[in-house]
């Protein structure tokens, strides 16, 4: 059964109709991405595996809840993955000792995303990833740091303020500015 040619929406439609070959194809496309998000938040291989299973089980039973007018399938998957990971993080109480909670750096072999890249296949996951990396890299360090703690660490603003030794208002502003900036930079990648 070769589903490689189907776009993500058609694939998800097939998942929602109970075809597990489509779920397998979806895992092949995005399983690693889901796992990466979960692992970076949770810092633990076994729990990240559990989280990944939870995510795909949720997709299997709730594919009909996906709304194609809101975001791409991969975006929806990442949202579910992050939400599940943060949920597990908060339940387990203690937080993993990360060497660093941060987005992936653009490697030396990656060119910065340019205007030409945006007209190329933005549907390509790798290009979208580089766009996000580039946009995040443009943020001031202080904004990026606060945002990473919220995004991957699942910390509240108050907890971030305590952790960084900064006033709550400062942290709120940094996160808000960072998100505004990123939203503008990434509006066209879906």
């Amino acid at each position, binding site marked *: 059964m070769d589903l490689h*040619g189907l776009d993500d929406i058609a694939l998800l439609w097939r998942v929602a*109709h109970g075809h597990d070959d489509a779920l397998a194809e979806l*895992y092949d496309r995005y399983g690693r991405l889901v796992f990466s998000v979960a692992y970076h938040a949770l810092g633990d291989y076994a729990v990240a595996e559990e989280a990944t299973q939870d995510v795909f089980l949720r997709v299997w*039973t709730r594919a*009909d809840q996906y709304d194609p007018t809101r975001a791409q399938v991969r975006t929806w998957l*990442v949202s579910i993955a992050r939400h599940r990971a943060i949920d597990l993080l908060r339940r387990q109480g203690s937080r993993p000792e990360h060497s660093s909670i941060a987005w992936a750096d653009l490697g030396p072999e990656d060119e910065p995303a340019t205007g030409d890249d945006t007209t190329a296949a933005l549907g390509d996951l790798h290009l979208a990833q580089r766009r*996000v990396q580039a946009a995040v890299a443009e943020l001031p360090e202080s904004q990026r740091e606060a945002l990473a703690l919220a*995004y991957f660490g699942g910390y509240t*603003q108050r907890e971030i303020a305590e952790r960084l030794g900064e006033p709550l208002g400062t942290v709120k502003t940094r996160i808000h500015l960072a998100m505004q900036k990123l939203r503008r930079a990434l509006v066209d990648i*879906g």
Partner: protein
Amino acid sequence: MADGHVLDVLASYALDSLDPQEREAVVAHLETCAACGAELQRYEVLVGQLGLAAPDAAPPPALRDRVLARARIEPARAGVAISEQLSTTGAGQQAWWGRLQPVLTVVSLVAVVALAVASLLLWQRVEQLASRPETVALAGTEAAPAARALLILEDADRAVLVVNDLPPLDAAQQYQLWLIDADGTRTSGGVFSVVDSGSGSLTVQAPRPLISYTALGVTIEPYGGSPGPTGDRVLGGSL
């Protein structure tokens, strides 16, 4: 937030980094404010996008089998048979395609906006669409009774056709979509093939706005298509 709106904290709300009190205030406000609700949706998309650049971590190969095994012991959607999905009028169904009524009359069009992932700038264009495009369901004929399809309009003259359960054809044949005028003229909407499982999709670029046609059909044709329909009709629907 002198005007009562919660715009300043919506980003944090989307990140789930608000304290309980502030969160409750936002939830209460969102119940009555569509503008903040729309703003929140945009932040929620961003939250999904940001994870794309999480540092790469390779899952163990065995995880794939575990994911699939877990799914196989779970019903995909409790209590709803696949064949019912597209054949009922969909009243009360929450599925995004289930909200369609596969009614074969022209009278009312269902206002469901659906987009194909393949088109890159659609997310931006959705904001610009003045009227709400429709999605049209096609039903299988006696030649392919199990077949179902959706034509998802992205723009006045562009759409994506998504099909399920069409029998694969031999190498000398392909399926062809026809846009049918009120006077019976057939215009080709393109050719496509399906994979072994019967699924396929086709991006349709029509010479005129799609709603100017009255019906759609899919027939079996020689590979590469024909100037006009020659083979069995497998799918049909009204616009």
